[in-house]
């Protein structure tokens, strides 16, 4: 294996070949906001928050899936990137029902954190008054589709770590939603092992434990840690 040297925001970095720009930034302590990225499962490059500029390439590149190359000169926080990130977060806030004050994940929400990080204080876009339904048919958990940002972390964690593939994405465009089983109520999906990985993987309050109320969806860091290493250690069930 060889090592690549590059710079991120003028900071020189040496990192193993095959790693991504996001890995390099993390190692160097440079923050790059992400939502759909979850350590331990595959990356999809869907939220577009981690886009960075690389000198000599006229496209913006997603840091989570772009491998490092020798001599890359990367900028993670140019005015253009800041503006685009803020717009992306505003678009998400206009799309779903993200009212923090009444959300189970308040103070424990990655979307909320990102909004603060990019400096979003209001959305310039029209609020879309989502009416996407809530499924509380499962005995322990519930999913509020209005709070879902379609990052598909639940889909990947259920498929790649738990191996149950309860979740997937149905429909397309604005009509997209996270579907359980063969488009059944979650509670009727026999494949679900009730492991709760999707609850921990969900960056917002969309998937929650029943009985939690405002701001009570405490992030269980140990469980997230488990998600990160489960695949390597072959811990397929809890």
């Amino acid at each position, binding site marked *: 294996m060889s090592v690549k040297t590059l710079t991120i925001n003028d900071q020189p970095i040496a990192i193993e070949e095959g790693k991504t720009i996001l890995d390099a930034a993390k190692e160097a302590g440079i923050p790059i906001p992400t939502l759909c990225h979850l350590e331990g499962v595959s990356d999809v490059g869907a939220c577009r928050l981690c886009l960075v500029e690389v000198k000599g390439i006229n496209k913006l590149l997603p840091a989570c899936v772009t491998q490092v190359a020798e001599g890359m000169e990367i900028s993670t926080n140019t005015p253009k990137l800041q503006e685009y990130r803020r717009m992306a977060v505003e678009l998400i806030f*206009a799309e779903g029902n993200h009212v923090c004050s009444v959300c189970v994940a308040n103070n424990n929400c990655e979307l909320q954190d990102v909004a603060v990080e990019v400096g979003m204080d209001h959305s310039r876009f029209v609020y879309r008054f989502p009416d996407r339904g809530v499924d509380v048919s499962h005995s322990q958990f519930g999913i509020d589709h209005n709070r879902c940002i379609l990052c598909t972390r639940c889909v990947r964690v259920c498929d790649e770590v738990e191996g149950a593939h309860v979740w997937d994405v149905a429909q397309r465009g604005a009509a997209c939603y996270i579907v359980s089983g063969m488009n059944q109520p979650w509670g009727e999906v026999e494949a679900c092992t009730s492991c709760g990985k999707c609850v921990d993987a969900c960056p917002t309050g969309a998937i929650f434990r029943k009985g939690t109320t405002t701001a009570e969806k405490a992030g269980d860091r140990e469980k997230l840690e488990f998600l990160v290493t489960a695949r390597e250690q072959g811990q397929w069930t809890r």
Partner: protein
Amino acid sequence: MDLAELQALAEQERSKRKSIRVHCCTSTGCQAANSLGVKENLDKAVEETGMGDRVEVVGVGCMGFCGRGPLVQIDPMDTLYEEVTPETAGSIIHALNGGTAEPVQGDSQHPFFARQMRVVREHSGKVDPERIEDYIALGGYQALHKVLYEMTPETVVQEVSSSGLRGRGGGGYPTGLKWATVAKMPGDQKYVICNGDEGDPGAFMDRSILESDPHLVLEGMAIAGYAIGATHGYIYVRAEYPLAIKRLQKAIQQGKKYGILGSQVFNSPFDFKVDIRIGAGAFVCGEETALIQSIEGGRGNPIPRPPYPAEKGLWQCPTLINNVETFANIANIIKRGAEWYSSIGTEKSKGTKIFALTGKIRNNGLIEVPMGITLREIVEEMGGGVPDGEVKAVQTGGPSGGCIPASLLDTTVDYDSLIKIGSMMGSGGMVVMDKETSMVEVARFYMEFCRGETCGKCVPCRTGTVQLYSFLTKILKGQATAEDIEKMEALCYMVKDTSLCGLGMTAPNPVLSTLRYFKEEYLELLKQPQNGKVPV
């Protein structure tokens, strides 16, 4: 089958031909106007008049002048009849014996035909798409034989490279370079994919090729397979093209029967089998990575590139993916040589391009023109201009392209010039608009299309198209302010720069190009100030 047998079959087919061939279009467009009824009555009339010894009626593919279908054309006289009905069909046959034909006789010397340069569509409308023998009679599959026995894979790639052919799906990536990349990739298993998921509103070039001359595409694919070292090809056709699918199925079976497709093509060690995959109605599956996911049985979502399909495509193997029209050019390049091909067109855009000319225009249909022709020649000379009006704009490139104002009609049609003026070649849709057309409405129409067709994977495309659509609706309702236009424009650039795949990256183009050339139309629709103040 060897070369001698192929040539003998061609010769035999040619000698079997009767002296007068009556071509009746049986493509989807003309079928919708009951051309099958026309053909039936033509056959009946031949029987009645007892001319069966010298006249044959042949069901053929598209002749191009779709707006005036059903079309019947007679060889060798080159007489064209338009808007033939089953009732008037018989008179065409009787006219061959000196009677008068009832249907309107078209002008085959009209610029609509005379200005065309038919390379891909050379035999379209002349060859029976359901008979491989008819294709062979016109020299079909000789190019495939030639590459297998006279050329190495490297020289085939070299020939395609020096022809200057660029991808006809819209992007214009050099075809030879793509072939060379896949050819040089290590690995025993590679794939060829033909992208027939044509979905731009108003575009039907690929459908026409597949329906009119399916063997031409299959031959191009087999040559590609040999050049890059693939033994398996897929044609991905959208389910909305049932006739194209039916004809392809037939063509593949016939090819196998003659040993031209399948194992040991022309008795050589080269195997090439072709399978058809039918799309389920998603526009985004025309994007190559989504198409590959769809063939694999997954959800048709684009995935980030790199890795490009040339490196890791179908089932993670190196994959060559080209558009229908690109493959349809290959046989001719091999047969007539790269030098001949590169003599057509401009310096950087070689060959011909098929356009579907539609909208407010006198002559609509399919045209094949050399690159470098001006939009004015296409619209005014060939298309005959707008009936009772003036051209306001021409839209090219479908939902990924832009609107070109009448003042730029002298722009030449090639990849780079069109991009320079904010549009793109696209797959070949060309919609002409007259002075009555509202450009804001046009922008909203395309945005509505993109909003409905985005896969929903990435944030800017999924939610950005919805927001752009609502900005445009607000403007059209007369409720928008100048600030809304600013916000909309900023969002356009954000969606363009940050989307994951080509659909999102180009979705704002119709808005941006109309903002660039027709801004006054947007401004006229803004909320009017009352007493010096804009009402809230």
